[in-house]
């Protein structure tokens, strides 16, 4: 009956939250930059390691033939859907002082967060690489074979040909890494000035009921994603431009 004015009031509150959030971004302080920078560092490091692992794994699966290959592919495809919180739990148990790798004292450090994110996104990059490379291999295998082109040259040609699709795979991995909260919360501990990243900060502010602050941090994270994707798109278009010039 009287729900309409209430709804109007609530929409107004949402707009107010957004404007407060933007205000907070404009008045961004050193703490915010520290958190943002750590997010980028952790996710970028995890991404680089995942590329170093995922590209060879995906390529090998696409090109080599060995027993159990189908099982490998199924496992990697399934690992793409692994919930971050489960990865976090596994890494926690492994790095805990009473776990097998406890002696290294890595729990509650950024390194632990890198390990968790790396485990999370390596299957994504490997699976997407496999998909792209397999399609190319099917198409060119016979041609390259008839021309007696050695395998390493063929793989190099595939990688070059698939570079745009692979960039998309890498972006998917980065997006997953920088946006996940479940794993880094468990293995990082959301420690102020040590392991607090954007997503755990958002979770903390939400739990404090500071919803505008949380929203502001969310917008910053979104802007970061936009910048990264914008940069990649620019590089791609320019590369294409020169490629066809």
């Amino acid at each position, binding site marked *: 009956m009287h729900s309409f004015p209430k709804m109007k009031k609530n929409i107004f509150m949402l707009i107010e939250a957004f404007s407060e959030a933007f205000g907070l971004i404009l008045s961004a302080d050193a703490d915010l930059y520290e958190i943002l920078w750590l997010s980028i560092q952790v996710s970028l490091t995890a991404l680089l390691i995942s590329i170093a692992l995922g590209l060879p794994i995906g390529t090998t699966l696409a090109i080599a033939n060995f027993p159990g290959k189908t099982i490998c592919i199924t496992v990697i495809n399934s690992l793409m859907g692994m919930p971050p919180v489960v990865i976090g739990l596994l890494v926690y148990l492994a790095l805990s002082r009473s776990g097998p790798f406890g002696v290294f004292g890595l729990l509650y450090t950024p390194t632990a967060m890198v390990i968790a994110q790396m485990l999370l996104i390596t299957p994504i990059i490997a699976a997407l690489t496999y998909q792209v490379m397999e399609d190319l291999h099917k198409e060119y295998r016979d041609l390259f074979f008839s021309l007696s082109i050695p395998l390493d040259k063929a793989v190099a040609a595939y990688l070059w040909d698939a570079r745009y699709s692979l960039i998309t795979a890498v972006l998917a991995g980065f997006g997953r890494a920088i946006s996940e909260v479940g794993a880094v919360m468990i293995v990082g501990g959301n420690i102020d000035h040590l392991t607090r990243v954007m997503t755990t900060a958002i979770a903390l502010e939400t739990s404090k*009921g500071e919803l505008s602050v949380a929203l502001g941090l969310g917008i910053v994270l979104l802007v970061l994603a936009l910048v990264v994707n914008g940069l990649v798109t620019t590089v791609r278009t320019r590369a294409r431009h020169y490629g066809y010039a």
Partner: protein
Amino acid sequence: MRHPIIKQLSFVALCSFSIFSFADSIIVQSTTSTKNSGLYDYILPKVSTDIGIKVNVVAVGTGQAIKNAQRCDGDVLLVHAKPSEERFVAQGFGIERFDLMYNDFVIIGPSDDPALIKGSNDVSEALKKIAVAEAIFTSRGDDSGTHKAEVRLWKDSTIDPTKASGQWYRETGSGMGATLNIAVGMNAYALTDRATWTKFGNKGDFQIHVEGDQKLFNQYGVILVNPENCPNVNAAAGQKLIDWLLSKTGQDAIASYQVNGNQLFYPNAR
């Protein structure tokens, strides 16, 4: 990988992780209320200037904090569930338990107060009214200190709310803040420590309905994790922190923390 910018970035990223290792730092496994209320933000800079120790706080529920400390993933335990803390020490996981400070629990709820408990200072009576009215009550349900206290309060009121789990009794399985957000969203009652509630920013039209009962007393304790059980424990630094917290300086610092003119924690170390 051959791109120089990527190489540089990864170098910077890897190098900057190592800068934390040389400081004398310890990990405190803590309940969430002391963090969410802003107490650590207020006293830890003082700790750093007074005794030169960097304190890293991992704030989880009391139950999880105790489990983490049992696995040696912390140097100091700061929680609020006395029986569990005493068991922790008795089992050899901790050296000694000290009373640190206290505050109290309150029952908060919507201003229209469907169970008519406003102004009560008898928590058993209020919980009975909530159960009779089948008014929605959100429970932490996560084995935290507040959850343990809540379970004890229901027991005292001779009601077993878990029979109505999923109906009017809703266990969120989440932290205090998340549970308060859910309570506000569902027009539900909830038990919370006063500190978290005072600092909470999403109160809506919610207010404190029940307070002042002896049973709502909330004691915080601090324990050094036993280095005989966990050789990695930085016992010297951990003991220094505990000594500081229990000293007059530390106790005065705790007492002087205020939010909107309200004192949130009352030191009571002996």
